[in-house]
């Protein structure tokens, strides 16, 4: 694809080679930010990583590098491999919660321990599009079959979830996946993968959404009605 999604906010776009190894890529980013110097003060930086697929961990590292520069925040990581864009910090302009430790691999089976920022994705994610976030993700729209949302925290879809959602992707098993219409064939939380039974139920009546929440309970993923959620 020659033309990519346009960066938001008009801030500088840092293009990073897609063939380099990740370590080199981090060095390049540091160098670029240092070179831009005062120009990036208070700016919303967009990273263009070409056809590279970033893991959540890599995304967090890149965000950490950007955050080291005063007043700079990462707004968007463009990843052309999916034709879509993974946005960071869309809703939360505030710097991420100071010193919030990443959730540990052995998460409790209670409430999500993740206190990071939430991102708002105000569109439908279509097949092949992917959002990766170091916080929670709220999608105002549908997540269609073949689309992917990966979050360190919770995934909330104000619409139909038909694609893949991975909450607590860094190991937080207290994370949840919630949707107005939970129609996904598979839900992932932490290290768990829950799959709809074969011969799955018929799709819900679009007129009457049934909000549901998927969470880890007794070592497996269970789906419950969202009613009565605090």
């Amino acid at each position, binding site marked *: 694809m020659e033309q990519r999604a346009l960066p938001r906010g008009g801030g500088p776009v840092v293009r990073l080679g897609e063939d380099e190894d990740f370590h080199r890529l981090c060095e390049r980013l540091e160098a670029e930010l240092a070179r831009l110097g005062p120009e990036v003060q208070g700016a919303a930086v967009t990273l263009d990583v070409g056809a590279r697929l970033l893991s959540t961990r890599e995304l967090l590292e890149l965000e950490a590098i950007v955050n080291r520069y005063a007043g700079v925040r990462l707004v968007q990581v463009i990843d052309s491999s999916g034709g879509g864009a993974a946005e960071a910090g869309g809703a939360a302009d505030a710097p991420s919660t100071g010193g919030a430790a990443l959730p540990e691999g052995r998460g409790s089976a209670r409430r999500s321990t993740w206190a990071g920022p939430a991102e708002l994705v105000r569109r439908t994610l279509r097949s092949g599009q992917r959002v990766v976030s170091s916080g929670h993700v709220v999608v105002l729209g549908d997540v*269609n079959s073949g689309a992917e949302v990966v979050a360190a925290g919770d995934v909330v879809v104000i619409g139909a979830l038909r694609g893949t959602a991975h909450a607590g992707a860094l190991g937080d098993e207290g994370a949840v996946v919630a949707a107005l219409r939970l129609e996904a064939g598979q839900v992932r939380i932490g290290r768990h993968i829950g799959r709809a039974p074969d011969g799955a139920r018929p799709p819900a009546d679009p007129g009457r959404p049934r909000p549901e929440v998927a969470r880890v309970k007794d070592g497996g993923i269970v789906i419950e009605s969202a009613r009565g959620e605090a």
Partner: protein
Amino acid sequence: MGLAVVVTSGKGGVGKTTTCANVGAALAAGGRSVALVDADIGLRNLDLVMGLENRIVYDLVDVVRGQAKLRQALIRDKRFPNLQLLPAAQTKDKTAVTPAEMRELVAELKASFEYVLVDCPAGIEQGFANAVAGADQAIVVTTPEVAAVRDADRIIGLLEAEGLTEPRLLLNRLRPQMVRRGDMMEIEDVLDILAIPLIGVVPEDESVIVTTNRGEPAALVRDSRAGQAYRDVARRLMGEDVPVRAAEGEASFLGRLRRLWGT
């Protein structure tokens, strides 16, 4: 300045080329000047469906490389002088042209035609990037099958990334009787997933196969149901407000469509 519309789908075999030929023919029959561009380089088809294969001398790649002038390569339709085809090259592949070259070519066509319809190849690689370059609007063709719908969804996302944010959907080869029996996806199911406006619903119609093989678009056959649907699509493309026609005895089908269009 004309309007460039790319006809695309992601999945192959859902009816992009047939749609191009029929909508193009219907626009031309309505008095508009139309250029059809076959962007499926290496798998040339549109010339066959239009019945113009014998007249090809130069092709799109020749024009881009400066080996032929645009007007030398354009083939005038047998039926309508205001309908012309720019055929694809058959001996090259998708990498023979770039999106920048296509953009220039489409701009040149828009200067002398009211409508430029670009027939996009299947897939999401360079052929797609070439076909959408220079397009002002997009028609996404799908059939009521899960695989075709998912591919259409992918394509809609890619079109958005290319700045074509308002594509319209052509639902092709719908079989109302199967839908009624619950054996085929309903229009609502497809629209629920794709969430873009409809530009038309074309019923499955054997006459399309017959006319396509004869190189004679069904849109020019007066009593063809699919042909009628394609004529309606052309009129909607021209900005007319065309109500949905009842396929014989499909009262409930029509009722649902009315609701979808809000008429």
